[in-house]
């Protein structure tokens, strides 16, 4: 049994990363459900960003995104394709954070109020929020996703990576990569 400080540190970090993975999964399921249960409201909120002018594209985004978030959340909870899912979460969170920030800046400019006093429904799935709180939340979610992408949170995974079981990338991954539940 390896009891070296480095090993214990890595193990502790991995345990926290598992909690982060579950938290991330639960958050995405919760936010996705809120949107999926009220798709028209989500569609209206998507429209406010003025990102697309084609209704078919707008409808498709508003129809797919909530369920896609739930799907990603379930994968994280179960520990399936964790790194690939983390990439997708970052690919969703980063542009969304930029778009929300732009809108908050526009509202701040119109109302001449401090940036953190800006409050609006960003379509995130949890109603009206103060922008600074939203940005903090998104930053945390992005950090957690990067952490998972770095390879942490492998414990209690059904199938951490989808590639062949016979292939391992690093010796330290052996025995942890698959079937460690």
């Amino acid at each position: 049994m390896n009891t070296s400080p480095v090993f214990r540190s890595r193990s502790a970090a991995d345990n926290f990363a598992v909690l982060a993975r579950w938290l991330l999964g639960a958050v995405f399921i919760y936010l996705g459900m809120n949107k999926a249960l009220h798709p028209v409201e989500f569609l209206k909120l998507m429209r406010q960003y003025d990102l697309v002018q084609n209704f078919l594209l707008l409808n498709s985004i508003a129809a797919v995104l909530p369920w896609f978030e739930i799907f990603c959340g379930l994968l994280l909870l179960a520990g399936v394709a964790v790194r690939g899912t983390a990439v997708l979460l970052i690919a969703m969170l980063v542009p969304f954070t930029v778009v929300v920030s732009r809108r908050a800046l526009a509202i701040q400019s119109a109302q001449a109020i401090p940036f953190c006093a800006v409050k609006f429904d960003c379509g995130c799935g949890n109603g009206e929020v103060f922008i600074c709180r939203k940005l903090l939340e998104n930053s945390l979610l992005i950090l957690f996703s990067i952490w998972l992408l770095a390879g942490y949170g492998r414990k209690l995974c059904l199938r951490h990576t989808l590639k062949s079981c016979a292939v391992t990338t690093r010796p330290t991954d052996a025995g942890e990569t698959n079937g460690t539940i």
Partner: protein
Amino acid sequence: MQPPDIRTPERRPPVWNTLREALLVAAVGIVLALGANLVSPRGLTLKRNYFPAGISRPVAPATGFGSPGAVANTNAPGSSPAQLLAARLKEQELQSVDGRRAAQLFHDPRFQQGTIAFIDARDEQHYREGHIPGAWEFDPYYPEKYFPAALPACQAAEQIVVYCNGGDCDDSESAAITLRDVGIAGWKLLIYTGGMPDWITNGLPVEVGMRNSGNLRSTNK
């Protein structure tokens, strides 16, 4: 004797495997999401234009101020909210009425006879919380649900006042266009631009619950 190591060495960089995995998850996720939307009773109809009054007009934030698109125009000459609204209605060939005219139509005996109709284009929750007495519920995002009751009333009416929440709300315009698309003459349709907030401000009665519930609430201040 040790068994032979069946593991093969990594041939591609890990980042490639991760990206490939992400693409696979994305593809499966999108297919499942489309399927979920299809079977969900609340799912969106992809081919339907939910914003017949135009997608590019952004919805106002809950704080009551304009959205980025509107904000960008704040200092442009001739672009006050009222002017923008007037331009929008003109573009859609719709007429508007103010609170005074809406109140006149409400007190007109023809309203009781059914030749003047009021259409509430807000969602069910807002309608139940309080609407213009006798107004028909017609959420333009679920028209098929409200056509059976509202359409005959609109066909019988000579003037139809459509309203929503005033301000930047354009659901009344969407409702009017939807009604026009199913055969209601455009000249009959009048957009009450002030909407429910203006009605309440003017101290006019509000009906709570279902249409003709009899549960009237005075808004006199």
